[in-house]
């Protein structure tokens, strides 16, 4: 891949928490033609996705930045931000730990095709998200659901079966009626990965989405009656991929669909209710 010669890199400014959680300095350093650290007047800003991030991003849009990256956003209604960004022509990209993995990008067809083919014949979706002890289960579930949706999975009838400080179990169904089980687990012994497994009548498809703190590749494997296929690996973190998407959106003037997707995710989370148990 050859990087196009650009007139100048976009200046980046990151809020301290965003710098830490999004490894912004290291990521920007790995895209030296596209980005550079900015002084007082940044072209793009990085914000932490903690509570109130939609207001903070809207403020940044109103200050005239050309792009905003939000690291690990918690569930919030992004509609006002989306409207403000559309009016100002500001690109907003959500840097989500698993949903932002490059292997799930629309243009990378292999993963989505493997999952789509498995979903057409699915008997069970079994997905597990791992977080460090102390991770808020609501935050973990937001990341988790975002990842499952980014795999092209449609879920209905979601309800919380159990939740506590160590995780949660959410049950729903796939369009064909097969059960879907999402489990969140906290432990420091396992990296913060997410797995999405679709079992079918004759095989399965599995996606393992890595911790975004390094460039570990996602793993995709499909099993059919003909055999097993491992898909090509992409050694790029979700963080770096998000910044590449931001640069592309700024250059093209075509807004990313992140906020639209996040609105769907937030709506789904809003429909979640606890099981009578």
């Amino acid at each position, binding site marked *: 891949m050859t990087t196009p010669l650009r007139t100048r890199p976009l200046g980046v400014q990151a809020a301290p928490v965003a710098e830490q959680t999004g490894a912004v300095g290291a990521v920007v350093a790995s895209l030296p033609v596209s980005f550079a650290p900015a002084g007082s007047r940044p072209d793009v800003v990085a914000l932490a996705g903690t509570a109130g991030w939609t207001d903070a991003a809207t403020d940044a849009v109103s200050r005239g930045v050309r792009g905003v990256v939000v690291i690990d956003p918690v569930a919030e209604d992004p509609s006002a931000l989306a409207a403000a960004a559309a009016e100002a022509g500001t690109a907003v990209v959500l840097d989500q730990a698993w949903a932002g993995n490059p292997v799930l990008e629309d243009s990378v067809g292999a993963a989505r095709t493997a999952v789509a083919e498995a979903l057409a014949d699915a*008997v*069970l979706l*079994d997905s*597990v998200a791992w977080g460090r*002890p102390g991770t808020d289960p609501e935050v973990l579930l937001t990341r988790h659901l975002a990842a499952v949706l980014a795999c092209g999975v449609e879920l209905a009838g979601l309800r919380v*079966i*159990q939740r*506590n400080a*160590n*995780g949660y*179990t959410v*049950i729903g169904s796939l369009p064909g009626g*097969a*059960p879907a*089980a999402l*489990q969140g*687990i*906290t*432990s*420091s*012994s*396992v990296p913060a990965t997410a797995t999405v497994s679709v*079992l*079918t*009548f*004759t*095989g*399965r498809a599995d996606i393992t989405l890595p911790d975004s703190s390094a460039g570990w590749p996602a793993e995709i494997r499909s*099993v059919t*009656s003909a055999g*097993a296929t491992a898909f090509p690996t992409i050694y790029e973190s979700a963080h770096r991929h998000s910044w590449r998407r931001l640069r592309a959106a700024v250059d093209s003037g075509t807004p990313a669909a992140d906020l639209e997707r996040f609105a769907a995710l937030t709506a789904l989370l809003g429909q979640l209710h606890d*099981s009578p*148990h």
Partner: protein
Amino acid sequence: MGILGAGPVTQAIHLPSLARLRDILEVRHIMDVDPAVAESVAARVGARFSSSMEELLADPAVEIVAICSPHQFHATQVIAACRAGKKAVLCEKPFAMNGEEAAAIAAVSAETGVPIVVGAMHTFDPGWLAAESAWGTLPDQVHTIRSSIVLPPNPRFEDFATEIVGRTPPPAAAAAGTPADDAAADIAAAKATLTGGIMGLAIHDLPLVRRFAPDFRAVEVLHAQTVQPFGYVISLRAGAVAIELRAAMNGTWEPSWTFEAIGDDATLSIDFTPSYVQAGSATARIRTAGSTTVLGPYGHNGYEGEWRKLAELARGTGAAPDPDTLIHDLEFALAIADAAAACVDAGAAAYEEARA
């Protein structure tokens, strides 16, 4: 050795395992209610055959009895084998169908001094045993357990292990009835699948689950659902421990059988080999942040481990399994099966209420 029941499990699992242990165990008598099957299977190992339990138990050449008959006969046959003065008894799981039967078995075992081994093969798997020796204080911190079983239909592996005789064909699908009949039949089928799945499949790992769930009597099933064509999704908790059970027996060629016990800073993960074939032991991994200890694989599986244990007991060496442990394992499985069936009823009632 004498074996009661000569179906596919005896043919494809036990006889191939025993064929690897000819220096310590010898099959001398095979019983099956189908005399043709009994004769055919016995001929493979040069054993006598019969079609009655009494005949096998009266055979003085039989010192150890293995009970591989349908579940409902287990308790009666275990008790009869103990009273027949045999040296040890192996009973396939479940070794009884209710707590009263289990208590009666334990009492007879104590009275006669005949040790009983229940065929929970994963508890005899060298990979599991190695993990047990290495996991230290892990059970004190486990808050979540996962058991996930994905298996091809049994005949795929049976046919790799032996040449089966007397295989029972799968039951034909029921004819369609009225909508009300169909709804009732669906509920009954779901309950039967869950009960069969727990007592026939999950039960392999429930003794493992119980090692990490000390409050097993507080078990509460939160969700139970069937998976096509056969399987289950069951969420439960026992005290503070969350337990998730998944299973699918579909048309895949690739088996996957995993058990995980997860704590705040350590995790045990075990990959078991498929039943029927001689594919060695499980591989266990004990993980902490930045470190993974791999145990196994070893050269034999849990079935062979069962037989080695049984031979030790018959020779008077080795400690017999604690009868209370066997009873508690059974009570745990029965409680989950009952509660899972109740979940189906509760779900059906909620659906009817919503419709009203």
